[in-house]
């Protein structure tokens, strides 16, 4: 039996929304039927119309009026999503939240996807830094308890839009919380650095973990397996420096090159969160079609 595609809308036709659109268009289980914005004639709305996708400039209200939707990706901001979340819930629409609002639980596809999808009606994609680093902390924590995880995410200035800049505290706090809640570290810290070098640098993430560094061989194996799993949805995710023991800490560096769908390849930070979001929605579709939800 041919599976029915789930009907999907995006709120927020900015860089992230457009990149999501390009990815959803390739999906076998999701069909983009609506792009919602609030500014008539914006680039994202124009592109959606060119692709034959319906558009609205009434934001979330336009989405609710449109009706008959299964999944909404929210790529607006923390403030707007706080208002959108109850409306989507009341309309029975599953929400994938790419803002720092974090109304629903954090979700990292390779760590806790099914358990969250089976219980929540709104999931939060953490941050780009969280999507890139929490899997590594989780992989290390599977081998030996991580007492403290600290990550440093360095992004090219061009790939950090006004949303990231104005909410830089939310970025560090949300990422830190996910290192603990999803990664399993007892304590956490996140640092973000913006680098304006030209040509733009790739997103790079250094992950420091305080743990039993004598288990480095098992740690390397666990991390390498994890990287392979992340690569299934983010092919540009690479182990730049494999885990090595340095005194009481283990240091790992990962780099993320974007797929270059809409955003340039150096925007790996944006690509990993949009890729993860689409992966989450596709898994939701599978579970729903399979009758699990």
């Amino acid at each position, binding site marked *: 039996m041919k599976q029915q595609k789930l009907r999907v809308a995006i709120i927020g036709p900015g860089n992230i929304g457009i990149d999501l659109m390009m990815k959803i268009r390739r999906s076998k289980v999701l069909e983009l039927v609506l792009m919602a914005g609030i500014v008539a004639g914006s680039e994202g709305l124009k592109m959606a119309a060119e692709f034959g996708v319906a558009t609205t400039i009434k934001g979330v209200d336009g989405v609710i009026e449109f009706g008959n939707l299964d999944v909404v990706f929210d790529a607006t901001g923390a403030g707007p999503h706080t208002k959108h979340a109850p409306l989507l819930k009341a309309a029975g629409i599953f929400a994938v939240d790419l803002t720092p609002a974090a109304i629903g639980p954090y979700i990292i596809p390779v760590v806790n996807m099914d358990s969250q999808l089976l219980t929540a009606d709104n999931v939060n994609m953490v941050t780009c830094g969280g999507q890139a680093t929490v899997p590594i902390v989780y992989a290390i924590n599977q081998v030996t308890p991580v007492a403290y995880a600290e990550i440093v995410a360095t992004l090219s200035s061009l790939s950090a839009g006004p949303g990231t800049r*104005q909410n830089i505290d939310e970025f*560090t706090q949300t990422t830190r919380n996910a290192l603990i809640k999803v990664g399993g570290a007892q304590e956490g810290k996140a640092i973000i*650095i913006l680098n304006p070098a*030209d040509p733009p640098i790739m997103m790079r993430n250094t992950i*420091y973990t305080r743990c039993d560094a004598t288990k480095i061989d098992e740690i390397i194996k666990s991390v390498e397996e994890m990287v392979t799993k992340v690569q299934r949805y983010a092919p540009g995710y690479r182990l730049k420096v494999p885990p090595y023991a340095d005194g009481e800490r283990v240091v790992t560096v990962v780099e993320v090159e974007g797929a270059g769908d809409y955003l340039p390849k150096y925007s790996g930070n944006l690509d990993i969160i949009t890729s993860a979001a689409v992966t989450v929605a596709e898994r939701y579709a599978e579970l729903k079609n399979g009758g699990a939800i």
Partner: protein
Amino acid sequence: MGKIRIIDSTLRDGMHAVSHQLTPEQMAMVAAKLDEAGVDTIEVGHGDGLGGSSFQYGFTKCPDAEYFKAVSAVLTKTKLAVLLIPGIGTVEDLERAMEYGVKTVRVATHVTEADAGEQHIKFAKKNGLEAIGFLMMSHMAPPEKVLEQAKLFESYGADTVYITDSAGAMLPADVTARIKLVRQELSIPIGFHAHNNLGLAIGNTLAAIQAGATSVDGTVCGLGAGAGNSQLEALIAVLNKAGYTTGVDLYKLMDLSRDVVEGLMHRPQVINGDTLAIGYAGAYGSFLLHSRRAAEKFGVDARDILLELGRRKTVGGQEDMIIDVAIELAKSKGSKVI
């Protein structure tokens, strides 16, 4: 001639030179003497500011709050300031610091990224603090770009904007060009923070004042990242001779330097091959000790690491790139690493 405001950073930038290991008691001892000497404002905490204590930058001996508590208890007239680098420190950290009498926050961003500091400047102003915008690595941007970013800080409500030579890479003419332009276009006071990697800290500070800066930084014994900052005792002597008023007692600073700070230092604060390489390459000053450590671990020359970091246009805070560069240099030499 005009009055110049002095902000002492011995207990913040100076922490880089001692791997962030001063104790709250040591800080209180220094702070009390700076207060007695008439220094307007002192900046305290980890070298990388609020939230800086980390694997990336090194852990402080004690939590931030203990430093603020110890220092605020001994201050009578001097104002207590903290540094906040957005991406490292947060408004939450600042709120905690405010419980200990912090009156001034310097919000520091890379010279092209002032908008990352908007929320912090606005929070500070809303909560009655003095807010200073601090444009780090100012040598990496031309004067027009520095001006554009300084204007952003002014538009967020900053009380003062600093041009910061974090790499100690500027020549006096570079300082003059930037300060002069910003001075002409902004209505708020302009400050300058120097590093001595090229031996120009005092000269550059004087150039900044002559170009219109009215707030400048120094540290006792020059204690700070790289080859250190403008040595405050010398700076005060120079400013006295040049006819500026600072309100700082030179003899008391000299005594503090000899009797207290010299004893806290881990090594002499001098220009040597490595610190000179920082200024020459335009790399961030606090990369110094981290590069030496990586050089030793991976069997390469610290100067090569620092020059490569400069070539790659690394910015402040990218200490983790040091590992990458050291590993790549070791590999290119044919060494087997990790």
